[in-house]
């Protein structure tokens, strides 16, 4: 029996390699013809004219991710600190249940809300409304619940005797959080940040719905942008030949970005049981 199980396990493990190889194989028709550096040096992204510059989309993807993290990370950590150290037990339990519930809300639902409610609001301030800013806000809403849950589970690892010792020393609650809980759970918090960054990088639907999808390096928060993932979703339906290979190359870049990021994180069992 255990040989059979070992084979199945190996199969599942190799799936990642398999995915990588298939993406490579599908982008090969293009990558063998042009030098891969052209993906960053061509004048523009016009696959029908054989221009394959994806750098504007890479920049947009990174900006959207960083922006979302800048909003969601402090809020998520504050949420986690509140649940773990400030809230009464019943409240803390209720807040965690709410977070678990919110973590399961589909991204298209947030995208729909963004498109119908948020975009008109932004457009009343400046520009067309579909913008980098809208993408950042929707992404941060999306990654906040799971991020807060992850942060909470790493804060929960602060040893009970340290908590008691700090209370005995008369430390205020914030002093305990700042000098004991946060340093002790730094690795866990960074891990949470990386996992959420990975999610934001790869998120497609919500971003596709609110970002405007114009291929350009944004000059302001109100400028429309197109991310790598949105580019695939938008053009895959009609892409043929080299164009299709170019989209697979985009997918490959995305895969490499996320994989590189995740190599700095470790499997987090709590993430899996909540995500």
């Amino acid at each position, binding site marked *: 029996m255990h040989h059979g199980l070992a084979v199945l396990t190996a199969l599942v493990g190799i799936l990642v390699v398999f995915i990588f190889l298939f993406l490579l194989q599908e982008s090969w028709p293009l990558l063998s013809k042009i030098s891969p550096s052209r993906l960053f040096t061509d004048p523009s992204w016009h696959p029908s004219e054989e221009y394959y510059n994806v750098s504007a989309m890479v920049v947009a993807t990174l900006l959207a991710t960083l922006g979302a993290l800048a909003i969601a990370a402090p809020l998520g950590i504050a949420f986690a600190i509140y649940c773990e150290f400030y809230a009464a037990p019943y409240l803390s339990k209720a807040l965690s249940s709410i977070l678990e519930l919110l973590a399961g809300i589909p991204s298209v639902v947030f995208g729909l809300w963004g498109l119908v409610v948020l975009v008109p609001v932004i457009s009343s301030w400046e520009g067309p409304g579909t913008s980098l800013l809208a993408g950042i806000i929707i992404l941060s809403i999306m990654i906040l619940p799971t991020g807060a849950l992850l942060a909470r589970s790493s804060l929960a690892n602060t040893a009970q005797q340290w908590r008691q010792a700090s209370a005995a020393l008369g430390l205020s609650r914030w002093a305990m959080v700042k000098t004991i809980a946060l340093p002790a759970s730094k690795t866990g918090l960074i891990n949470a940040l990386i996992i959420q960054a990975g999610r934001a990088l790869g998120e497609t639907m919500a971003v596709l719905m609110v970002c405007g999808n114009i291929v350009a390096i944004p000059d302001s928060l109100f400028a429309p942008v197109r991310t790598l993932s949105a580019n695939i979703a938008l053009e895959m339906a009609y892409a043929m030949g080299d164009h299709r290979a170019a989209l697979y190359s985009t997918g490959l870049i995305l*895969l490499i970005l996320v994989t590189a990021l995740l190599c700095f994180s470790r499997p987090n069992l709590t993430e899996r049981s909540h*995500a």
Partner: protein
Amino acid sequence: MPEFSLYKGIPRFSLTKSRLIHGLIAAAVLLALCVFGFVLSDIAIKGWRHIDFSFLTENPLDSGRAGGVLSILVSTLAVVLICLFIAIPLGVATALWLAEFSDSSKTRPIAAWLRRLIHLLSGIPSIVIGLFGFVFFCQILGLGYSLLAGGLSLACMALPLIIGTMEQDFRSLPSSLRQASSALAISHSAFIFHILLPVSAPALITATVLSIGRSLAETAVLLFTSGYVTRMPESVLDPGRVMSVHIFDLSMNVTGGDNKAYASALVLTALIIALNFFTKIVIARFKARL
């Protein structure tokens, strides 16, 4: 052990500052809750206005502008079931090997690598899985745009979730059970089938529900694997449109589709929330019985 600046810490923090920070943190929580409350109530209110019973019992007409979501619900259910049918046995088998058979000195490094690969799999963007599914399931295996191809692609996403949940649970089995079964000289396979797996039933429910939730929420994977067709599917080889793709299509590609998009979003969200509550109750019952 990391070094903490306890002694530096004490005089630096005043009570006023601590209270101020308490207020700030509570405000952040309140802000987050308000945003989510705002989004969900918007979906609930606008969705409720455009929903009636016939919405659930009619097929969509005119690209979804009229009619209901019956065929969409059927496709969604089919895709999710196919995903579970593949991912659960495979995920449980993998978790079983990782938890029960991988601790010898020869297999431990291999298991560490496999765990790392599975961790990477859990992070792969869904659109990339969609690209893979399109090439591998739709084209190479010749399934075309079909519910089967969609379900198989979804299974790739659900696997790490199931493996993680199950392995953690297998490993947290009370050692008394393990010791008792060795004392009684029960074979390893009997131990697995009669003790380990039955005791892990609640975790299996959790893993199943998490996978259902993830599958229901997934859109990008299914865009180019299960297709766009709103017709009622007749077999697993037919294409079919799932709820999340329907919401996306109505709001982005169909002018005047917003109302039905809201109604569909409400149905999907309600389904996910109901599933969440239902599971909590079932698991609480299970734990009470054990």
